[in-house]
């Protein structure tokens, strides 16, 4: 039986601090997004949130249907096993994301226009 040492507490405190820091980072107030960008297979395509539509996607042998409705984007259905993307719920704000790792598809809300690269903090 080994007793925990001070060094362990330092490690735990450091990881905890990093977690809190990254958490604070994601709590910054976010503005409403204007555009949905879908990253799939190294390609990306954007759709304005103002136009309702259904977008069928397929990658890595899985099919997803993404829906844009009333300024919100969400995954309507997916054949992937986990359904994390569906449970991510509707995306509305800048920086909101939904991922389907099995299919390698990422949905992200950004502010549209040309300068969407600086939406790091979201």
């Amino acid at each position, binding site marked *: 039986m080994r007793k925990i040492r001070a060094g362990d507490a330092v*490690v735990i405190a450091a990881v905890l601090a990093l977690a809190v820091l990254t958490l604070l980072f994601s709590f910054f107030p976010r503005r409403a997004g204007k555009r949905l960008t879908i990253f799939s297979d190294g390609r990306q395509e954007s759709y304005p949130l103002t136009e309702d539509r259904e977008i069928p996607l397929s990658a890595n042998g899985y099919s997803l249907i993404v829906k844009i409705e009333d300024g919100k984007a969400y995954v309507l259905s997916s054949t992937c096993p986990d359904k994390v993307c569906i449970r991510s719920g509707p995306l509305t704000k800048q*920086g909101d994301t939904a991922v389907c790792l099995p299919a390698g598809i990422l949905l992200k809300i950004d502010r549209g226009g040309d300068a969407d690269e600086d939406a790091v903090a979201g």
Partner: protein
Amino acid sequence: MKTPSRAESLARTGALAALALLFSYLESLFPLPLPLPGFKLGLGNVVVLFAAFFLSLPHAAVLSLLKILVSALLFGNPISLLFSLFGSFFSFLTLIASQKLLRGGKITFVGASVLSAAAFNAGQILFASLLTKSHALLFYLPALLLASLVLGGTVGLLLNLLSSRLARLFRVPDPLRQDAAKKACGSPKEPERPSRKDPR
């Protein structure tokens, strides 16, 4: 302690690899009841951390690779294999520092395991970010870091409890106890533990 024969060392590494696989199998039988998939205790890391402390870093690397490759063959898929490899690479980098701290008695397996888990998860997020060519996944980092604390900490505590028994089972000397014994004998400078050859 006499230096082990090549056969003994080989047998020990094989037994440790089997133990790591057993742990991976047990884990795949009982997924953790968490809202997100993919979170696991990382019991296999028990063996890797054990090997890093009691044997050597090459032992730990070989065991880690064996565990990843075989458990991906048995319970995983190509994508999970890539994620594991990437995460474990980062995990191993922390192990290089952890081993010194562990053997110096600065930290115990709890600290080493938390570091290893945090690096594993950060590495996987990094890989997922590269895969999707986006930094948006970094938003999962807080949850993953907290998970590393709890899950990695649990594995570390387990190892703190079990390491002496495991060491006796596998007939390896405890580097800390050895140092203490040598200090008690009054030797001015404790020599490095003879490093064993990588049994590959």
